[in-house]
C-alpha cells in the first residue's frame, strides 16, 4: 500500500537524519573519537560522516577488502588537536601518517596496540611527553619518525627489540639520556638523533647510566 511505503520511507528518512550513531563499527567509533579531538581548519575531514556503515569511503582512510582500516593519511593537513587512547582500537592499521600538522599533547601509549603497524609518522608536530615504551611491541614497525616535536625523556631502550625497524628519526626534540646501541640502533645514522641538546651520545653500557642527564 502507498501508506506502507510512505511509512517505510519515513523510517529511512528517520534513520539517516536523526540517528547519527547507528553504526556499531568500532573502527568508526575510534575514528569518530579522533575526529572529535581535532580541529579541522581546512575541511579535510568533511567526508568523515559517522552515519556511514563503515569508514571506507572517508577520505584519508583506507580499508582492506574486509573493510578494516589499514591506513590513516593525514600528512600536512593543517589539523590541530590531540590523539586519544581510542586510536589503539584500529587493530589492523598499517600506516599512521599524521606528519606535518599541529598535533599536540602526549603520544598515547595505546598506539602500542597497533600490532600491524608498518609506519608511524608523527614528525613535524607539537607532541610532548615521552616516547611510549609500549612501542616496543610494534614488531612490524619499519618506519618510526618522531622528529621535530617537543618530546622529552629518554629514548626507551625497549625499542631496540624492534628488529624490523629500518628508519628511526627522533631529531629536533628535547630528549635526554643516551642512545641505545643494540638491535636496529646499530644502523641508524647520527642525524636521526641530532638537535636534542640533552642527549648524550651512544649508550656506554656499564659506564654511564642509561638515563644520564635526564
Amino acid at each position, binding site marked *: *500500500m*502507498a*501508506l*506502507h*511505503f*510512505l*511509512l517505510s*520511507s*519515513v523510517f*529511512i*528518512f*528517520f534513520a*539517516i*537524519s*536523526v*540517528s*547519527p550513531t547507528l553504526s556499531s563499527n568500532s573502527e568508526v567509533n575510534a575514528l569518530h573519537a579522533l575526529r572529535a579531538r581535532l580541529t579541522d581548519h*581546512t*575541511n579535510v575531514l*568533511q*567526508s568523515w*560522516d559517522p*552515519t*556511514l556503515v563503515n569508514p*571506507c*569511503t*572517508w*577520505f*584519508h582512510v*583506507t*580499508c582492506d*577488502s574486509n573493510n578494516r582500516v589499514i*591506513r590513516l*593519511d*593525514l*600528512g*600536512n*593537513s593543517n589539523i590541530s588537536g590531540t590523539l586519544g587512547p581510542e586510536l589503539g582500537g584500529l587493530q589492523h592499521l598499517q*600506516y599512521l*601518517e599524521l*606528519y*606535518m600538522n599541529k598535533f599536540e599533547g602526549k603520544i598515547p601509549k595505546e598506539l602500542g596496540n597497533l600490532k600491524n603497524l*608498518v*609506519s608511524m*609518522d608523527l614528525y613535524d608536530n607539537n607532541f610532548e611527553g615521552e616516547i611510549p615504551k609500549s612501542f616496543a611491541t610494534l614488531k612490524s614497525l619499519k*618506519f618510526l619518525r618522531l622528529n621535530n616535536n617537543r618530546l622529552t625523556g629518554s629514548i626507551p631502550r625497549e625499542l631496540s627489540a624492534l628488529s624490523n625497524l*629500518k*628508519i628511526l628519526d627522533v631529531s629536533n626534540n628535547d630528549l635526554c639520556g643516551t642512545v641505545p646501541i643494540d638491535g636496529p640502533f646499530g644502523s641508524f645514522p647520527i642525524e636521526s638523533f641530532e638537535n636534542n641538546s640533552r642527549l648524550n651520545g651512544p649508550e656506554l653500557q656499564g659506564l654511564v647510566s642509561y638515563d644520564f642527564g635526564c
Partner: protein
Amino acid sequence: MGRFFAIGLVLVILCLLSIEKFACYGETHCLESDRKALIDFKNGLHDPEDCLFSWKGNDCCQWVGFWNLSGIVDCALLRLKSLRHLDLSLNTFEGNPIPECLGSLQALKYLNLSKAGFTGPIPPNLGNLSSLQYLDVSSDFSPLKADSLQWMAGLSSLRYLVMNGVDLSMVGSDWVPILNGLPFLTELHLSLCGLTNLIPSLQFVNFTSLAIMDLSLNGFNSKFPDWIVNISSLVSLDMSSSSLRGRIPIGISELPNLQHLNLAMNGNLTASCRQLLSGSWRSIEVLDLSMNSVHGILPSSIGNMTSLVDFDLFSNNVTGGIPSLIGFLCKLKSLNMESNVLTGGLPEFLEGTENCFSRSPFPSLMYLRLGPIPASLGRLSSLMDMGLGGNELNGSFPNSIGELSELVSLDVSFNQLTGIVSETHFSNLSNLKFLFMSSNSLILNISSVWVPPFQVHNLQMGSYQLGPSFPDWLETQKEINFLDISNASISGPIPDWFWDLSSNLSLLNVSFNQLQGQLPNPLPVASFADIDFNSNLLKGPISLPLVEIELLDLSANQFSGPIPLSIGDVQPYSVFLSLSGNIPPWIGESLIALRVLRLRSNGFSGRLPPQLSNISSLQVLDLANNKLVGDIPASLGDLQAMMQVQKVNKYLLYGKYRGLYYEENVAISIKGKAREFTKTLSLVTCIDLSGNNFLGEFPEAITNLLGFVVLNLSRNHISGHIPEEIANLHELESLDVSNNQLSGSIPYSMTSMTSLAYLNLSNNNFSGIIPDLGQMTTFDGSSYSGNPGLCGLPLLTSCLSGALDTRGTVEDDSENLLKDKWFYSSVGWGFATGILVPLGILAIRKPWSDAYFGFVDNLINRQMGVSRATSYRNRRRR
C-alpha cells in the same frame, strides 16, 4: 540612539528571485557603525555569484539582502545592536556551527536559521534572547542537535518555535515543563526530532495560547499523554508516526477549536470507534486515524461532524456498515475506509443529503476508498473522481461504473481486477479525461469500430491486454497527452495515423510489446517528452525528435547504424541503454550541468571527444572497460569542477517533495576496490579511463585538476612519463597507472603527495631509483613491481651507486602478481548499462528532473522489487 535598524535578510536559492531592502526606521541614512558591521559580515562570507552586489556605497538602507552564500557567519553582526530580524535560512553554511554570538543580539525578535546547513549543537546562549518571538532552526539533513532545552526557559517572549529535524534524542523528559513555561507559545513544531520522552501527566497546563502542535515522527513509545486534552486553545495537533500506544482519550473530541487531528501511523493507539466519534468534534475538519487499532462500529452520530472534509480510517478494525447519516457530511471531500472489516458498501439510502447545497449525496466527494468496489458506486451520480488505484481490489470491474456520467478521473490501476472490459463499462463516461487501468488482469474486448464517448488526456493501460493489433480506437483520441500502453500484448506495425497523435504526446510508452517496422524520422513528439520504445522489434536507423526531450529509451530493439550526429542539436537529456558506438561529442556540448558521467563497461568505441571538458560540473568521469582509442585529450585538464578541491559536502537526495527518497549512490573504483559513495559523493572527483585502448603520452594537462581524488588510467597503452607536476594533486588518494608503457623515473615530487594512499605503477617501464622519503615510503613493493628498471626500497633490487638510470634486475615477487587481480574482479560490478546522472541539471530543470526521478524510480522498482504501490504512485501522471 533611538534609531532602529532592522534587517530583512531574505535568502533564496537563486540570486534573482527575491528582493528585500533593509528597513531603516526613522532614518534616511544608516549609521556608519552599522555599515561597517555589515561590510565585515559580508567579508566573512563566500559570495561567488556576487549576490551582495548592492552592498556598497554609504547608504546601507538601500542595500539589498538576498543571496546564496556559504562560509562562516562573522560576528560582525554583533555590532548591529538593534538588529531585530535576522533570516539566514536556505543557505549553505555547510559544516559550520551556529555562531554563539547570535545569543548577544538582545533586540532580536525574529531569527530564522532553518535549512541553512548549520551543524553541531545549538548554542544554549540563544536563551538570552528574551525578546525573541520567532525561532526557526529546522534542518533537513545537516545534523543540528541539542542535548537539553533548559536554555529555552529564557525565551519568555517566544510565540513560534520550529525545530523540525533537530536531533533532540538526548533531551530528557523536562522539555514539556520547560515549554509549558512559555506563556505566549502559539506554534510548536518538533517533528522528526528523535524525542523519546513524553511525560504522561502535567500538573498545571500553562499552554494558554498554543494553537498548533506538531510532534509527529518521534519515538515516544509511551501512552497518549492526557494533558494534551487540557490545551483548549489547540487548533491543530499532529502526533502521527510517534510510537504512541494506549487509548485515545475521549476528551480530545471536546477540544472546542480543534480542526485538524492527525494520529495516523501509531499502530497501537486504540479507541472504540463508537465512543470516540460520539464526542462533540465541534470544529473538526481533518481527522486522520489511519493505521491504528480503532475498533467497533461507526456510530450514527458521525452525521453531527458536519465540518468534516477529510476523514481517514484506513487500516483499522472498524466493523459493521457505513451509517446512512453520513449523508449529512456535505463538505466531505475524502473518505478512506479501506482495510477495515466493514460489511457492505455504501448504504442504499443516504440521509441528510437534502441539507447539502446541491441536494445530491456527497456533493464534494473527490476521493473514496472503501476496499471492494461496491456495485452501488454507480448511484453516486455526482462522483467526478474515483480513485481506487493501488489497492488489492479483486473481482470484476462493475458495469455500473459506466453510468457515472460526471466522472472525470477513473483510476483502478494496480489492482487484481479480472475479466473483460467492454464498451458498456464506458457507455456514459463522456467527461472522462484521466483513465488509469494499468496493471490488472483485464482484457479489453471491444469492436474494432468502437468510438469512445470520451476524449482523454491521460490514458494509462499498461500491462493490460489490448492487442494483438494496435488499438484502432486510439485514433479518435485527439486530445491525448500521456499514453502508456506498455506490455499490452500488441504486435505488428505501428499504424501511420499514430504519428499524427504522437506529436502531442508528453509520454509515449509502448515498451515491452512486439511492435515492428521503422520509426518515422524525425520522431513526432511534444517538447520534453518521455519516449520509451524499449523492448520491441523495431528496425532501421535511429530516429530522433526535433524538439528537446527528457528521456529516450530505444534499447532492446533491432536498430542499426550510428547514433545520429544531429542529436547534439536536439540537446536531450536522454538515457541510452545498451547502445554502443562512439561517445558523441554532443555530450560535452549539451549536458553541461552533468556531475557524474558513468558509461562503464559498455561497448563504446572511438575517440574521447575533447568537448567533454565543457561539462563544467563534471566530478566523476568513469569510462572504464570500453573500447575507447586514441589520445586522452588534453582538454580534460580544463574540467572545472575537478580543478577545485571539493570541501563542502552536499547530500544528493532526490524526491524530497514527492514523499520518496532516493539517495544518490555511485560505485567508484578507488584504492583498488569498488566503493559505493552515497552521502559524501559530492566530495569525490574521479577520472577512471582504465581498461580501454588509449594511446599516446601521459596526459600532462590533467595535473591541473587540483581537486582530483581518484585517477585510474590503468590497462591502456599510455606511454611517456609522469610529470613532476603530478605532485600538485594534493588531494589525490588513489593513483593507478599500472599496465601501460610509461617510462622514465618516478617524480621525486611525489614524496609530498600527502593524501596518496594507493599507488600502482606496476607493469610499466619505469626506471631509476624509487624516491625514499615522505609519503613515498608508505607503499610496498607491489606498487612498483613489473618495472625492470626500478631499484631501491621497497624493492629488493638495490641501486648501483652513481648509476641511477641503469637497469638492474628485479627479483620477481609472486605476491605482487596477485595484487593485480583486483582489476578483473572489479570488471564484474560495473553496470552493463551506461547511466548519465545529470545531478546539476536536475536541480534546475523541473521537467527533466521528473523524468529522471521517474526513470530512477523505475530502475529501482525493477531491481529492488519495491511494492506495486510505489510504481503506481510514480506512473500516475496528470
